[in-house]
């Protein structure tokens, strides 16, 4: 069960809220202070991408963020509800769509920042999973 779960309507102005909540929960969970900037940026990128996907596909459901404190790590899942179109996130599929390009750049930023990171495309939508080690207090 997630420690904190956050659902927000797919509006750009709520992405900042998600960043602040994620950083606050990560700090409490024991994520190293030096990594909190990374948490903030990675969650922001994942949420911005999800917001872009929802908006460009006319999806009204909220974006879901799950923040989970585990034994030695703190994990974050950002889930969108835009079903995979079978290669929908391929770099060449949306070359004319700036929102898609930004989403891809967002993924590039996350992969540059976070060691433990994966993107899962499912029938019901995509999930970005990432985690950071925690130090026990």
């Amino acid at each position, binding site marked *: 069960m997630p420690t904190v779960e956050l659902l927000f309507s797919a509006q750009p102005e709520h992405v900042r809220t998600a*960043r602040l909540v994620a950083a606050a929960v990560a700090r409490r969970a024991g994520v190293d202070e030096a990594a909190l900037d990374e948490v903030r940026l990675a969650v922001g990128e994942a949420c*911005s991408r999800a917001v872009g996907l929802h908006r460009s596909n006319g999806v009204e459901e909220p974006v879901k963020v799950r923040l989970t404190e585990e034994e030695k790590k703190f994990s974050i899942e950002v889930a969108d509800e835009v079903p995979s179109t079978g290669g929908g996130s391929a770099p060449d599929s949306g070359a004319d769509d*700036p929102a898609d390009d*930004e989403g891809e750049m967002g993924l590039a930023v996350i992969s540059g*920042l976070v060691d433990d990171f994966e993107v899962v495309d499912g029938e019901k939508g995509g999930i970005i999973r990432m985690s950071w080690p925690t130090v026990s207090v």
Partner: protein
Amino acid sequence: MDLSLSTRTVGDRTIVEVGGEIDVYTAPKLREQLVELVNDGSYHLVVDMEGVDFLDSTGLGVLVGGLKRVRAHEGSLRLVCNQERILKIFRITGLTKVFPIHTSVDEAVAATD
């Protein structure tokens, strides 16, 4: 914190001082500002990012868009930034090779290459 923008000119350069957070919500404001400057004939821009607390890929996209616009007029877009956490984002995306990044506005204004 929201985004703050102010502009001033030094010689043929236009300094755009940016403060606050550049993200998916605020980046369109910065995009509008850069487009407006280029439309008004300012082709040599210096974006001072010393007051920026947060920058994400949407913000990077806007800066790249600005660079493309000024280059179409043989102009330039230089950045001023000393903050490690912001510089890191330029490094991991390889954009340090695309943007001239300076340590002060004076240095950026004096640069000619």
